C-alpha cells in the first residue's frame, strides 16, 4: 500500500497543472451557479447566456476528464516497450491499484470536495449530499471508465485519440448492423425490454472494467482490445435477443397501505383522435375508477402495460400512459385549507363551459368530477399504429391491462406570502420571490406574475435507482410543485412543478427561474367574470408541496373486446 500511495503521489504531482486547470473550471461553473442563484430572476436573456457558459463548462469538464485520464495512464503507459515502470519492481497489479486509487481521488473525491460548499450553500442535508455525491461519481464514471479503457490500450495521446475515433466508428457501424440485421426478436414484453437495457448496461460496464483490469494484469493489448470488442458485440446482440426478465423484485406484494385500493374499468374504447389522418396512430382509452384510496394519500398512475391475445392466438404487447389522480383533498388536509366557498352562479357557469370545451376538443365526455374521498378517476391511453385500428375490435379477444400505481403522502415544504425578496428554504429546496408584477393581460390586470428563483437537488438518482431496484414507475412526478393557496376563499390551485421554467443544473443543483401566474379570485355575475376579493394578494400564499412515503404497486384488470368510440354528443345548450 505504501508503494501504491507513492505512485499516486507521483501522479498527483505530475498532473498538478492540468488538475489545477480542471479545478478552476469546476469552480468557475459553481461561480456561474452562485450568480444564477443570486440573479434578478427576470432577465432571461442573461440567464440564457449564463446557461450557455454552464453547458460549455460541462462539455469542457467532460473533455478535461478525457484528457486527464490519458495523462494519468500514459504517465506509466501499458502499451509499447519504452515505459520506464516495466523494468522497475512495479507489478501490473500494483500499478492498477495505484491508478484506481488515483482515479478515485481525482475524479471522485476532488469534485465532491469542490462542490461541497456549493451544496451546503444550497441547504443540502446529509441525505441530499449523499445523493449528489452518488450522481457526481456516476457522471464522472461515465467518462472516466470509457476513457480509461481507451487509455490503457494506447501508448500516447495521438493513438488514444485515433483509437477513440476508431471505437466510435466501430460502435456506430455495429449499431447500424444491429438495427439492420437484428431487429427486436420475439416481440418482447416491456419487462423484457427493461431487462435488456440492464443487461446491455451490465455488459458494457463489465467490458470496460474487464479491458482495464486485463490490460493492467497481462499487458496483452490485442487480447484486451478483443475483450472490449466482444463485450460491445455481446451487448448489441443482447439488446436484440435477450429473452428473460431479470428484474426479480418487480412490484412485490402489496404494501399495507395499498391493500384496500382497487380499480374498475369503466370504458375501454378506441379513439382515433382529431389528428388521426396525420399521426396514423390510434389511442385505446381506458377509463379507470379507483376505490379505497386512503384519504391522506394521493394516487398517481403511470405506465400501463397492455397484453392482448388475438383470435389467432397472437399476442399484442403495448405500453401506455395513465394520467389522473386527484390531489385536492389530501392537500387541503395537510395545508389546513378549509372547504372551498362555492359560488353557485360561478360553479354552474364553469361546469358548463368545461363540458363544452371538452366535447369540442376531444369528442369525448368530460372526466367526471372527483368529489368522493377515497375515489379517483384515471385515464389510461395506449397508442398503437393506425394500421391496427381496423383489426383490433375483431381480432383482439381478451387481454390484461396492468397499471403501475403510486401512493404518496403530500408533504408541505414552504408557504410564502407574496413578498418580493423573501427567501425560504426547507429540505434542500430554496425559493426566492425575486419580483412581483401585475399581469400584463389587461382584462385580468389584478392577477400577478411571480418571478421565482429556486434551487433544488438535481436528484437524478431518484429516477434511476428504482429501475435497478425493480419496482419503478415511469413518469410519476415525485417532485415538488407550487400551489396558490387562499385560505379565506378555501381555494387551492395548482400552479407549476418545481423546476419548470428556465432551468440549468450545476453540480447536482438545479437552478430554475420560473414565471408563475397567480390568479385573483373571481366570480361570475350576470354571465361575466368580476373580481371576487379586493385584498386577495395579502390573503394568498405560494405553497410548495412535495411528496413522501411513496408506495408502489400495480393492479391488473381483464380487458374484453373494444368498442368503437362514442359518437360526438350533440352541441351543448347555450350557456346562460
Amino acid at each position, binding site marked *: 500500500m505504501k508503494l501504491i500511495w507513492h505512485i499516486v503521489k507521483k501522479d498527483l504531482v505530475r498532473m498538478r497543472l492540468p488538475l489545477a486547470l480542471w479545478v478552476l473550471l469546476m469552480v468557475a461553473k459553481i461561480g456561474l451557479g452562485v450568480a444564477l442563484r443570486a440573479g434578478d430572476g427576470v432577465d432571461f436573456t442573461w440567464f440564457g447566456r449564463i446557461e450557455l457558459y454552464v453547458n460549455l463548462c460541462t462539455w469542457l469538464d467532460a473533455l478535461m476528464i478525457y484528457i486527464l485520464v490519458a495523462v494519468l495512464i500514459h504517465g506509466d503507459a501499458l502499451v509499447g516497450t519504452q*515505459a520506464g515502470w516495466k523494468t522497475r519492481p512495479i507489478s501490473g497489479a*500494483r500499478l492498477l491499484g495505484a491508478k484506481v486509487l488515483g482515479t478515485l481521488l481525482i475524479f471522485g473525491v476532488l469534485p465532491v470536495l469542490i462542490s461541497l460548499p456549493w451544496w451546503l450553500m444550497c441547504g443540502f442535508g446529509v441525505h441530499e449530499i449523499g445523493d449528489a455525491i452518488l450522481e457526481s461519481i456516476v457522471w464522472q464514471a461515465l467518462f472516466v471508465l470509457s476513457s480509461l479503457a481507451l487509455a490503457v490500450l494506447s501508448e500516447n495521446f495521438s493513438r488514444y485519440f485515433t483509437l477513440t475515433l476508431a471505437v466510435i466508428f466501430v460502435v456506430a457501424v455495429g449499431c447500424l448492423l444491429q438495427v439492420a440485421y437484428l431487429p427486436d426478436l420475439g416481440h418482447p414484453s416491456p419487462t423484457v425490454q427493461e431487462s435488456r437495457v440492464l443487461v446491455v448496461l451490465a455488459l458494457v460496464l463489465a467490458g470496460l472494467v474487464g479491458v482495464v483490469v486485463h490490460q493492467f494484469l497481462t499487458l496483452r493489448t490485442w487480447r484486451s482490445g478483443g475483450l472490449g470488442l466482444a463485450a460491445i458485440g455481446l451487448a448489441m446482440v443482447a439488446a436484440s435477443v435477450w429473452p428473460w426478465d431479470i428484474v426479480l423484485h418487480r412490484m412485490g406484494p402489496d404494501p399495507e397501505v395499498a391493500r384496500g385500493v382497487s380499480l374498475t374499468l369503466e370504458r375501454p374504447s378506441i379513439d382515433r383522435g382529431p389528428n388521426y389522418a396525420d399521426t396514423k396512430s390510434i389511442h385505446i382509452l381506458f377509463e379507470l375508477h379507483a376505490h379505497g384510496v386512503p384519504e391522506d394519500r394521493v394516487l398517481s398512475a403511470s405506465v400501463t402495460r397492455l397484453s392482448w391475445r388475438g383470435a389467432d392466438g397472437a399476442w399484442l404487447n403495448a405500453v401506455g400512459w395513465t394520467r389522473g389522480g386527484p390531489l385536492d383533498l389530501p392537500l387541503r388536509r395537510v395545508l389546513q385549507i378549509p372547504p372551498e366557498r362555492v359560488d353557485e352562479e360561478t360553479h354552474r357557469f364553469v361546469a358548463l363551459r368545461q363540458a363544452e370545451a371538452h366535447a369540442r376538443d376531444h369528442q369525448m365526455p368530460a372526466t367526471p368530477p372527483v368529489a368522493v374521498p377515497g375515489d379517483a378517476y384515471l385515464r389510461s391511453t395506449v397508442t398503437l399504429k393506425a394500421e391496427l385500428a381496423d383489426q383490433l375490435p375483431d381480432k383482439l379477444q381478451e387481454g390484461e391491462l396492468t397499471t403501475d400505481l403510486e401512493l404518496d403522502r403530500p408533504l408541505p415544504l414552504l408557504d410564502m406570502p407574496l413578498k418580493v425578496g423573501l427567501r425560504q428554504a426547507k429540505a434542500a429546496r430554496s425559493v426566492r420571490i425575486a419580483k412581483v408584477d401585475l399581469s400584463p393581460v389587461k382584462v385580468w390586470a389584478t392577477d400577478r406574475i411571480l418571478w421565482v428563483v429556486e434551487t433544488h437537488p438535481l436528484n437524478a438518482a431518484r429516477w434511476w435507482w428504482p429501475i435497478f431496484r425493480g419496482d419503478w414507475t415511469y413518469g410519476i412526478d415525485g417532485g415538488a410543485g407550487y400551489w396558490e393557496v387562499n385560505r379565506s376563499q378555501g381555494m387551492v390551485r395548482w400552479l407549476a412543478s418545481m423546476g419548470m421554467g428556465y432551468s440549468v443544473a450545476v453540480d447536482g443543483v438545479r437552478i430554475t427561474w420560473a414565471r408563475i401566474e397567480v390568479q385573483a379570485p373571481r366570480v361570475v355575475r350576470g354571465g361575466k367574470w368580476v373580481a371576487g376579493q379586493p385584498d386577495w394578494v395579502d390573503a394568498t400564499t405560494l405553497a410548495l408541496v412535495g411528496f413522501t412515503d411513496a408506495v408502489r404497486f400495480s393492479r391488473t384488470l381483464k380487458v374484453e373486446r373494444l368498442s368503437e368510440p362514442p359518437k360526438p354528443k350533440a352541441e351543448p345548450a347555450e350557456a346562460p
Partner: protein
Amino acid sequence: MNIIETHNLTRRFGRTEAVHGLDFKLPAGSLCALLGPNGAGKTTTLKLLMNLLAPTAGEARVLGTDSRKLGEREFAQIGYVSENQQLPLWMNVRQFLDYCRPFYPTWDRGLEATLLAQFALPENRKLQHLSRGMLMKAALLSALAYRPKLLVLDEPFSGLDPLVREEFVRGLLEVSATGEWTVLVSSHDIEEVERLCDRVALLDQGRLRLDESADGLLGRFRRVEVTGAAAETGPAPGWLEWERAGVLTRFTDPAYAGEATERAWRERFPGGTVVARPMALREIFLTLARSGCSETLKGAAA
C-alpha cells in the same frame, strides 16, 4: 551459475525474424558486450530478456526465472538503461531518485550520493533540461544505486559526445570496481565496450555469430602481412579479407594459436616475410561484418 540463459529464443515481427534461435549464456560476474550492426537484433534481444517483448518461440531465463514471469522480486535486482527508455522528464534529478528509491529494498543511499557526486549531476535540474549524456547518467545512477545483480545497458553511448562518453565509461568502470554484478551491454561503440567488457557476443541478422571472452577473441585474431610471397599462393580455409597488391599479401587469421599458427604461415609462404599483429575489437568487428560472419568462422575458431 548463469545469470542469463536463452534457448532457441526467437522473435518475429510479421515476416521479419528479428531474433532467430538464440542460444546464449551469460555467466555471473561477466561484463558482456552484445555487438552487431544496425538491425542485428540486439535491442530486440534485450527487450526479450527484460520481458518487454514476448518471444515467438524459445525461452529466456534471467536470474533463474523465465523472462515472461519476471516480477517485482527479479526487477529489484536488475538495472536496465536504454536510450529508448521513457524517463519522467518533468521530475528533477532529486525527485527522480526519491521516486525510484522506495521500490528497491537494497537501495544504497551512500552509493547514490557517491554516484551523484561522481556523475556531477545537478540535483535540482529537471530531467528534461539535462543534456543527453547527463540524462543517461541519471538513468544509470537510478539503475546502479541499488547494486543490481544484473545490469543491462542498451546502446548507452548512443548520441553522447566523446567527452561525455568518456565520463560515462569512467563512471561505469569505477562502479564496476565496487560491485559484483553481471553486465550486458549492447552498443555500436566498440572502443568503449572494449574497455568495459570481458566477453563479447556478436549478433548478425538475428543470429548469434560468436560468443566468447574478449581476451580469447583478441587472442585468436591476427592481421597478417606477407611480403614477397609466391604469387600463386592462395588463402587457407577460414582466412578473412584476403587481398594481394604486388608483392604484398594481407589477410586476417581468426584462428591464431601462437607458434603453431606462425609456423603454418611460414610454411604456406616460403620465402616471404610474415608480420602479424594483434587486432583491436573494432577491427575484428569490421572484419567479421564485412566477411558476412560466415558459419565457418565458428568452425575456425573451434
